[in-house]
C-alpha cells in the first residue's frame, strides 16, 4: 500500500505525540538499575571493564532502538525471511566450526567480535512467527496454519539443542505458545503439541547429556555432582539467602560465594543483586519487570493490526521466559542454563537483542494510523 506524502509527514509529526512515555521511563529505570548492579558485580574483575563495555553496548543499543522505532515495523517484517535464513545458516555454521565454550559451541567470530547465532535466532524466530501467524492465507487449512509456524520454530530449536544450548531451545519453544494463542491458531492443536512434549519427556530425558541431566537432578537432590554444579547451586543459594531482607549493602557483598562462578557478571548477576540489596531490591526488580510487561501488553492491545500485536506479544514472551529461567536457576527451581537476565546480564549480544526488541515495540506503539483521524482522548 502506497502512502501519500501528506500521510507520511503527518505520521512523522505524530511520532512524538504517540511516544509512550511510561514505557520509556520503565525501560530507563531497568537499564539504570541493571548498570548499578553490574558496576558492583564487575568490581572484582579488571577495573570494572565489564561495566564500561556494557555502557558502550547500551549506547550502540539506543541508536539501534531509535532507528528501529522510527521506521514503520511493517518494513522490518519484510526482512523476516532473509533474517531467519541467515540465522539458520549461522546456527549450522556454529555447529560445524564454533569455538568450544564451556563444552558447547556457541560463538562465531566476526573479526574480533564474538557473535552468538543463538541470540540472533531468538529475534529471527519472533519475526518469522509474526509474519507467518499474522498473515492469513485463505487457502490454508487450520492445521496448516498451526503446522507451518511450528516447523519454523522446531528447526532452530533442534539446532540449538544440538549445540548443546538447552536454554535457547527452551526459550524458542516457549515463545511459540503465547504467539500461537494470540494468533488465533486452533487451541486444540497447540495444547496437543504441549501434551506431546510432556508425554515424550522420558524420551527427551535420554537425549540429554550427562551434565545436563545433573542440572535437573540437582534441583531435587543437592548431593548430585557435589564438586561441580551441586557446589555451585549450593553457593548460589547461600549468597542469595544471606542477603536477607535488607541486603548486605551496595558494593558490600562479600561475593566470596559467587567467585566460584566465572559468569557472575553475566548469568548469575541476579545473585549479586539479591546479596547486596536483599529482598527489597529483589521485589523492586520483579515489580519493574511486572510494570514493563504490563506496559507492553497495553501496546499490544492498542496495536494497529495483528502484526503489531504479535510483535509485542512475541518480545514480551521472550523476556518473560528469560526472567523466569534465569532467576529460576539462581534460586534453584530451574536447571542451570546460559540464559541472560534482561537489562542486567553483561554481554554485547544480549544487550543488542534487548534493544532490538525495545525498538520494535516502540515502532508498534508509534506507527498507529488511527490517531491521525481520531484524536487521543
Amino acid at each position, binding site marked *: 500500500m502506497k502512502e501519500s506524502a501528506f500521510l507520511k509527514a503527518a505520521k512523522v509529526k505524530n511520532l512524538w505525540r504517540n511516544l509512550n512515555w511510561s514505557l520509556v521511563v520503565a525501560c530507563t529505570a531497568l537499564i539504570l538499575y541493571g548498570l548499578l548492579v553490574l558496576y558492583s558485580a564487575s568490581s572484582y574483575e579488571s577495573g570494572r571493564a565489564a561495566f564500561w563495555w556494557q555502557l558502550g553496548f547500551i549506547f550502540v543499543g539506543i541508536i539501534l532502538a531509535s532507528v528501529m522505532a522510527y521506521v514503520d515495523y511493517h518494513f522490518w517484517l519484510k526482512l523476516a525471511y532473509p533474517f531467519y535464513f541467515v540465522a539458520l545458516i549461522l546456527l549450522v555454521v556454529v555447529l560445524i566450526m564454533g569455538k568450544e565454550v564451556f563444552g558447547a559451541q556457541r560463538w562465531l567470530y566476526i573479526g574480533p567480535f564474538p557473535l552468538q547465532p543463538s541470540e540472533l535466532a531468538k529475534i529471527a524466530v519472533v519475526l518469522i512467527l509474526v509474519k507467518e501467524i499474522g498473515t492469513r492465507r485463505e487457502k490454508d487449512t487450520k492445521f496448516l496454519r498451526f503446522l507451518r509456524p511450528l516447523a519454523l520454530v522446531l528447526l532452530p530449536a533442534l539446532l540449538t539443542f544440538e549445540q548443546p544450548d538447552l536454554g535457547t531451545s527452551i526459550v524458542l519453544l516457549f515463545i511459540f505458545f503465547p504467539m500461537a494463542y494470540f494468533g488465533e491458531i486452533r487451541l486444540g492443536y497447540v495444547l496437543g503439541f504441549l501434551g506431546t512434549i510432556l508425554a515424550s519427556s522420558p524420551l527427551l530425558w535420554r537425549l540429554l547429556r550427562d551434565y545436563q541431566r545433573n542440572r535437573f537432578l540437582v534441583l531435587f537432590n543437592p548431593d548430585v555432582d557435589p564438586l561441580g554444579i551441586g557446589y555451585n547451586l549450593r553457593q548460589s543459594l547461600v549468597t*542469595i539467602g544471606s542477603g536477607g531482607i535488607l541486603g548486605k549493602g551496595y558494593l558490600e557483598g562479600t561475593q566470596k*560465594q559467587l567467585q566460584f562462578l566465572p559468569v557472575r557478571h553475566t548469568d548469575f548477576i541476579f545473585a549479586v543483586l539479591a546479596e547486596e540489596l536483599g529482598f527489597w531490591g529483589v521485589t523492586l526488580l520483579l515489580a519493574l519487570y511486572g510494570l514493563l510487561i504490563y506496559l507492553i501488553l497495553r501496546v499490544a492491545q492498542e496495536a494497529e493490526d495483528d502484526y503489531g500485536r504479535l510483535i509485542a506479544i512475541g518480545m514480551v514472551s521472550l523476556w518473560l521466559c528469560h526472567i523466569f529461567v534465569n532467576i529460576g536457576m539462581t534460586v534453584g527451581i530451574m536447571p542451570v542454563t546460559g540464559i541472560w537476565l534482561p537489562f542486567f546480564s553483561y554481554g554485547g549480544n544480549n544487550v543488542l537483542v534487548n534493544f532490538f526488541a525495545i525498538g520494535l515495540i516502540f515502532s508498534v506503539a508509534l506507527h498507529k494510523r488511527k490517531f491521525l483521524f481520531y484524536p487521543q482522548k
Partner: protein
Amino acid sequence: MKFQKRFLTFALLCVFLLLILWGRLFFLQVVQGNEFKLVSEQNRTRLVSSPGVRGGIYDRNGVCLAKDQPTYSVKVVPDDLKEEAIPLLSQIISMPVEEIQAKLDENNLPSWESFTLRTGLGEDVAQKIEEQHLKLPGVVLQIEPRRNYPFGNLFAHIIGYVREISKEELASLGEGGYVGGDIIGKTGLEKSYEDYLRGQKGKQVIEVNALGQPIKVLHELEPQPGNDLILSIDLKLQEKARQILVDNNMNGAVVCLDPRNGEILAMASTPDYDPNLFVKGISSKDYESLLKAQAFIPKATQDRFPPGSTFKVITTIAALEERVIDPKTYKVFCPGYIDIGDRRFYCWQTSGHGEQDLIEAIANSCNVFFYTLALDVGPERLAKWARIFNLDGYTGVDLADEAKGLIPDPEWKEKTTGEPWYPGDTANMGIGQGDVLVTPLGLANVYAAIANGGTLYVPHLVKEIRTYDGLPVKTISSVVKAQIPLSEETLSYLREGMVKATDRGTTQKIKLEGISVAAKTGTAQITGEKQDIWIAAYAPVENPEIVVLLMDEYSKILYGSYLAPFAHELLSVYFSEKSATP
C-alpha cells in the same frame, strides 16, 4: 475488545510466574535468611585441586625417557594469606616480595581458591614451611609431580618439553579445563600427544579453620594419571646417533627408519638443548644463547636442505619409469665437465669418469651423466616424481610442527622470480641442487620406499599408548601414504648402483660383515668451502630392515662419502643389538 480474554489469561500467566519467583525469594531471604547468613559467615569450605600425574614416555624396550617425579609446590589462598606473612614466605621460597605480589595480582582464580606460587621445591624448603606453618596462614604445601627427562639433550627434538601454560594458550585452551599454572606440552611429542599424556586433575572440597588450614575433606574426586607413550625409538641407536653428531662437531641430523612399517628407530638433530632446563625455569641468558645457536629447531623435521646427489635416485626413477632411456644402451662420456648453453658444469671428479652407464654413474655419482640424464627427462617429469615421493609435502610424522621440502619447476620459478627456466636449472635439479630442498626425514622416507619396493609410509614415533596401569588405549599401526608403482627393473638398477657405490673410495667403510649394504652419498655446494653433506643407506639389501640417513650442514668435511664410517657404526649397533636379543 476482541482479545480481552486472551490478554487477561496471558497477564495472569505473567503474574503467576513472577509470583513463583517472588515466593521462592521470600522463602530464601526472609524465612531462611538468618540461617543462610550464618552459613555465609562461617562458610569455610575451600575447593582445592590436585594435579594428575602426566603419562610417561618409554622407548621400544621399555626404558623410561620422560616421567613425572614428586616435588613440592607452594600454594596460597589469597583470602587467608596475611599481608605481613609475605616477607617471611618470600625468604623461605626465595622469591622476591614484588614477584609474589605480582603473581597474586594476575591470579585469575577466585580469591578463596588456592593457586600455585612456586613449584619444584625440595624437601628442605618443604620442611621450613612445615616448621613455620603457624606464621603462614593460607600457605599450603603440596606434593606435586614434576617432569623429568633422565636423558637430557638426547631426546630434546623428539620428546620436546613441558612448561607452565602461557596466557595465549590459556585464552585458546582455557575452556578445555586448563587454568593458570597448569603444565602443558610445548613442543615435540609432549605437545602432539598432550591430550593423551595429560592427567586429570583431582578436586577436593575441604573445610578449613580460621587460619585456612584444612580440617575435614567433604567431597573428593581422585586425580587420574595420564596415558603412557611407547615409542618405536631404540635407546641404544638414539645414543649412537647423537654421539656421532656431537663427537664430530656436526650441525646435522640422523634419521633411522624401519622401511617395513615407517617406525622411526632413532632421530637426532644438533645443536640441541636440555629440556630439563625448561621444567626448572630457564634463565633468559641461557635461552638467548640456545636460541641464537638455533638449538630449538630440529633439523631432521623442521629444517630443509639441498639434497645434492642423494636426489639422483629420483632422477633415475623418473628416467626409467617414464621410459625416457633404455638403460641397457644409454651411456654418457664424462670428460669432467659439460657445457650447457654458455656455461660449463663440472663433475665432482674434474679429471672425468670416462664412459658411464647408469649403474656405474650411480656408483660413481657422476654429475655429467646425471646432468645429461636430467636434460633428457626434463624438469616437469623430475618434479612429478619428486612429488610422487612426497618430497614437497609433509611426511605426517606425529610431531607437533613439521617443515616441508621445495621442489621447483618452470611454473614455480616464473611465479617466484619472474625469470624463465633455463636448461642449466634442469641440470642442477637432476643432481639435487639449485632450488631443490628437502627435510632429512622426508628424504629418509624416500629411501625407505625404495628399500621396500615402493611403499611410502607415514613415519611415526609412537607405537602404542597405554593407561598408567598398562591397559592398551591405542596401538598405532603403520599408515601407508602412497603405494608407488615402481617396476622391478627400476628397483634392480637402483639397488645394483647403490650396492656398487659401497665398493668405491671412502664409501667402502660403510660395509658390514655378512650383511650387504646399499648406499648413496650426496654433497651440495653451499659456499666455496662449505657444503651440506649426506649419506643414505639401507640394509640388508635383500630384505631391508633399516634405513640410515646422516646429514651435516655447512660441513667442513668435503664429501658425503666421508660419512660412511658413521653410517657403518649405526648399522652395526642395530644389527648387533638384533643378534643379542633374538
